[in-house]
């Protein structure tokens, strides 16, 4: 098991390194990184000065070593537009993102798993079909359309809920629903198919045959086993949460890192983008690593294979 964790961690390091290399090369792909950083162009004397200042006149191998050294020291560069460290900007905004993503994640589990169960246990009835249709809609309708529809209905027409900013608890409702919609749809669909798989297993018949209560059979025997694959899906939700945050924060003017990132794309603020990609990628890779480890811990059957 330790060997598996070590091997898996090696891959984490490799992937993060690959991201660093990719980001480094991306900035130099067009030839001169200053073109990327200052798309409006620069006077020649200033350009020469900046080339020296950023160390861009040195050979590329040396630039790469310097780049890694800067990152290792926690020096991620300054925003071109706001002239302050990018790490500071992300640190300010990450709280709002985490709160929103956390709420959405919780809501999606609280709704997704029961919905998937209903979908599986009542699959031949109207309610089961209805539940899975809702899940299908949540899955197939894009974030920004769900967001705008909610704003239109609850914000503009009914005036029940605020649609921009994050000052009060009420502000959380619409963005959380939007961000959770895809997640709970996907969790519900996975729970359903996984539960259906388990329900057809022999030990289910055994459990019923020995006279256990249906409640015990479902919750102890079926649900527990069926949630193992769902756990991996939970880990992979993080990718969806990041993708979703990028769009949803922009729509709801939510002051988080997703909006910061989109703003940086529009303003072509490369240091901000660079830090964002490294950050997001590291988070995703680490979460997936933890999920894989958790998976081995909760399901003894996999240990022998690993």
């Amino acid at each position, binding site marked *: 098991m330790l060997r598996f964790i070590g091997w898996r961690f090696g891959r984490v390091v490799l*992937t993060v390194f690959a991201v660093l290399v990719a980001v480094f090369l991306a900035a130099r792909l067009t030839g001169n990184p200053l073109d990327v950083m200052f798309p409006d162009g620069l006077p020649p004397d200033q350009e020469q000065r900046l080339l020296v200042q950023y160390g861009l006149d040195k050979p590329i191998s040396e630039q790469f070593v310097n780049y890694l050294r800067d990152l290792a020291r926690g020096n991620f560069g300054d925003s071109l537009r706001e002239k302050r460290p990018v790490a500071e900007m992300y640190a300010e905004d990450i709280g709002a993102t985490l709160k929103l993503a956390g709420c959405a994640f919780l809501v999606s589990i609280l709704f997704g798993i029961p919905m998937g169960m209903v979908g599986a246990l009542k699959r031949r009835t109207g309610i089961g079909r209805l539940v899975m249709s809702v899940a299908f809609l949540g899955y197939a309708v*894009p974030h920004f359309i769900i967001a705008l529809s909610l704003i239109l209905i609850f914000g503009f027409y009914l005036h029940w809920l605020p649609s921009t900013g994050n000052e009060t608890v009420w502000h959380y409702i619409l963005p959380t629903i939007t961000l959770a919609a895809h997640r709970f749809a996907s969790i519900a669909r*996975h729970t359903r198919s996984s539960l259906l798989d388990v329900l057809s297993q022999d030990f289910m018949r055994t459990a019923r045959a020995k006279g256990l209560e249906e409640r015990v059979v479902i919750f102890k025997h079926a649900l527990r086993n069926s949630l193992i694959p769902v756990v991996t899906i939970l880990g992979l939700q993080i990718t969806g949460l990041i993708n979703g945050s990028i769009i949803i924060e922009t729509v709801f003017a939510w002051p988080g890192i997703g909006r910061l990132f989109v703003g940086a794309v*529009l303003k072509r603020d490369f240091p901000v983008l660079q830090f964002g990609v490294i950050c997001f990628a590291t988070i995703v890779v680490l979460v997936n690593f933890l999920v894989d480890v958790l998976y081995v811990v909760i399901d003894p059957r996999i240990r022998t294979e690993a």
Partner: protein
Amino acid sequence: MNEIPKPVESPHEGPRTVETEAASGGAATLPPGAAVESPTLFKRFRGAPLSIKICIALMVLMAIAAVFAPWVAPFDPNRTSMLERNSPPSWLGGKPGHLLGTDQLGRDVMSRCIYALRVSVGIALLGVIIGCLIGVITGVLSGLLGGWTDRIIMMIVDFQLSIPFLLIVLVGIAIFGTSIAVLILLVGTAHWEIYARLTRGQVLTVREFQFVEAAVALGATTWRIARRHILPNIASPIIVLLTLNFPSILLLESSLSFLGIGVQPPTASLGRMVGEGRDYMMNAWWLVMSPAAFIVLITLGMQLIGDWLRDVIDVRLT
């Protein structure tokens, strides 16, 4: 739509198995080159449930509207009219003739949607084709050559799976700017890895069959083996993947255009229209909801068709 055996999630979310997607409904028993499903597939369309038939009819209708936009659109999409600004849909008491109303410049929303449909569907189609080509070629190479080629390609696949692709696209746009060509290339490379994994798995299975061994023994080239024996066997799962991949590419483009970093004005895509209409949403909801309805119809329709096809062809995709 309720009897879906295995939910296909966006490729970043499915359980990760590399080898298992091989089984394409009993390909093992079929003679070489006989696994092409197109004639039977056509028959199956006839036996499809009504909902699927409606979806297919709707998609065909959209495709016709997109291709023949200049003839189908009731008005010139760029003709402005200050007298007819923000008029609601005609059936809600707006100016007659404007089925989906007019926008802030008095342009006909219906006509604009039809032209935007053309742009969105065009980008998504090209993107899907690019992704499929890259994926199938790398998948075949990976499976047939094995060794280091295989390892390197699979490493790139794993790398792409582990990073939210939206980030890569956003950075790509920041670096290369927002032209349609860049956009197509970026959305095209968004999901190539699902094709690569499917193809590789299939190659690994097919490679073990005796008829392939015989072909190798007879001195057939790698290219010939791929063309004659591998590609016919992956045709039907690829069709399913294409159907399911198309809506996600369309969504990627609409999301980018919605954020203002995809298709640039004066070109309009559906996502772009939703993004532009947002500012006027309070007074003119139809500016947002009309293009949004087109997007939802296409994605829902294609997703349903894809789910149905997958059940019919009986492929397991990760």
